[in-house]
């Protein structure tokens, strides 16, 4: 699917990220080049401190590179200010975190509606979109449960529904199965693959579990702030 010479959706050119200053400076990323096409399912792997999370944060426009160029659909993200990056997240990106990060005491449906609130959509449109998204992740009938009333797997599904309710181009998942047992983990991965294939959402996932990485169409290994290997693979059939 990468055969067409289309412009990449995401392009890193010589991205570096340095934390701290002077003696205490720590270089988390030292010159990363990476280009990602629309529709890919990318697994980012690597040991702790390899810079994979930093790379994800920059990819997700949550953080900015120290030097280098980040093109998102041809736009120079490194030149955008805080609010412009927030708008970019709002319109093109969806996030799934290891710790779910749902709002407590808030129903699944309200959690899913949250991004739409910031987009100023009408209540009717919000409700419908939230119900659709929850149905897509297989949680029809759980709309009014709060996170405390849901299992970990279900909470992560709500989080995924929240991430895709805006129909983003890219879904960024940071260790989405890190807090789940193996059975739930596989269910979540299958859901991500389905979203990737059926909805055409580009999925970028950080994981340290090789088993989970087998679901991806491409695996990027980070070591010491650089890309050590970058292999396309036959995605595991669901």
């Amino acid at each position, binding site marked *: 699917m990468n055969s067409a010479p289309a412009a990449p959706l995401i392009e890193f050119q010589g991205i570096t990220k340095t934390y701290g200053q002077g003696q205490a400076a720590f270089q988390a990323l030292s010159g990363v080049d990476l280009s990602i096409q629309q529709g890919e399912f990318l697994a980012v792997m690597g040991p702790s401190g390899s810079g994979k999370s930093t790379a994800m944060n920059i990819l997700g426009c949550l953080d900015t590179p120290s030097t280098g160029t980040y093109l998102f659909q041809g736009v120079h993200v490194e030149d955008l200010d805080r609010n412009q990056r927030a708008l970019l997240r709002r319109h093109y990106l*969806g996030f799934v975190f290891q710790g779910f990060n749902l709002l407590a005491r808030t129903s699944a449906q309200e959690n899913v509606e949250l991004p739409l*609130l910031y987009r100023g959509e009408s209540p009717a449109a919000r409700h419908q979109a939230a119900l659709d998204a929850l149905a897509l992740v297989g949680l029809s009938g759980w709309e009014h449960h709060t996170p405390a009333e849901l299992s970990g797997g279900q909470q992560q599904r709500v989080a995924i529904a929240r991430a895709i309710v805006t129909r983003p181009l890219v879904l960024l998942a940071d260790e989405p199965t890190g807090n789940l047992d193996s059975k739930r983990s596989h269910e979540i991965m299958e859901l991500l693959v389905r979203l990737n294939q059926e909805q055409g959402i580009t999925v970028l996932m950080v994981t340290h579990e090789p088993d989970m990485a087998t679901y991806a169409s491409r695996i990027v290994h980070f070591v010491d702030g650089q890309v050590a290997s970058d292999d396309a693979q036959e995605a595991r059939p669901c």
Partner: protein
Amino acid sequence: MLMNALLLALREIRRNLMRSFLTILGIVIGVAAVITMVTLGNGATRMVAEQISSLGSNLLIMRPGQRLGPGRDEAGAPKFRVADAEAIKSQVSALQAVAPVVGSSVTLVAGNENWSSTVSGTTNAYFITGNWKLAAGRQFSDEDEKVGRAVCVIGNTVRDKLFGHQNPLGAELRIKNFSCEIIGLLASKGQGAMGMDQDDVVVIPLLTAQRRLTGNQDVATLMISMQDGADTSRVMAQIRQLMRERRKLAENDDDNFNLMDTKQIAQALSGTIGTMTALLGAVAAVSLLVGGIGIMNIMLVSVTERTREIGIRLAIGALEHEVLLQFLIEAVALSALGGVVGILLALLTCLGLSALMHMPFMFDPGINLLAFAFSAAIGVVFGYMPARRAASLDPIEALRHE
């Protein structure tokens, strides 16, 4: 967008009822305390002024000691004698009546009933100066006063407590250790200052009181009523001059008695109550301050606790000012709600207490506004500041916050 923020804020308040309740509790109590204190103080001041002015503008009261009101110094000053009253009556013109009064708190007994009350020993002039009418019976006769007979005129409350609705005339009333015959019943005057019952009174001849209750010939108070249209300051000057002579005061000596008209008494008492009100107001202001610190705490804690939530909102694409606006509206809504509830609570309390203490209810918009503005300002400032700090964090920082 404002509607959106409002919606988000109200949702959050509803979702965290307990936290919201605790937040506004501080404001409610502080606002209610300050408003209640000041409102009641105003009512008390007004009531005393009304009570005193209802005594009439032509009444003078003379007591030993230098001044009336706080810090009265009565101990060293000689008391009056009956002769003082007679001298004033005969030597000062334009006077209607001069009543020498001695008072004593006693337990009254009649049949099986008993009642604690105040007995005033005085003359018939008292009924003129005190503006008393007789509902039944008679005043003291010359004979009663001259020999100090054991007779009494009672107020309506004393009648009610001891005799119910029976006619008390001719009945025996035990005052301390002697018995006296009830010869008259005073017409009811109703409630007096500070809920004091004006009808809770027993009047006996002066000589009777001196012999059987106080055991000396002192007179505690002279009540002097002037004729209508008399020149108050001229009359007061004459009385003062006369008393200085009678008490043999040298040119440079201060008066060792004080003579006041009702207006001065009202001023003295209002001054006392004003001081009390200021004191209570200060205490209440402290409680408002403590309430403010409570709001500050809860706002700080809850916003800090919600740093993660702010991180989530930022990550999914909320703009910094959208998050801030939401928190600001939450703070404003909570503080305003607390202020309004506080004001309502204060008004209810004031209405209840005013009715209970028979005081006029004096609504003071200034203090209501002040208390409300103060608490609202604290809520808004301390809701906004930590939210601003949190919203300016990087989303990843905020998300990492535990």
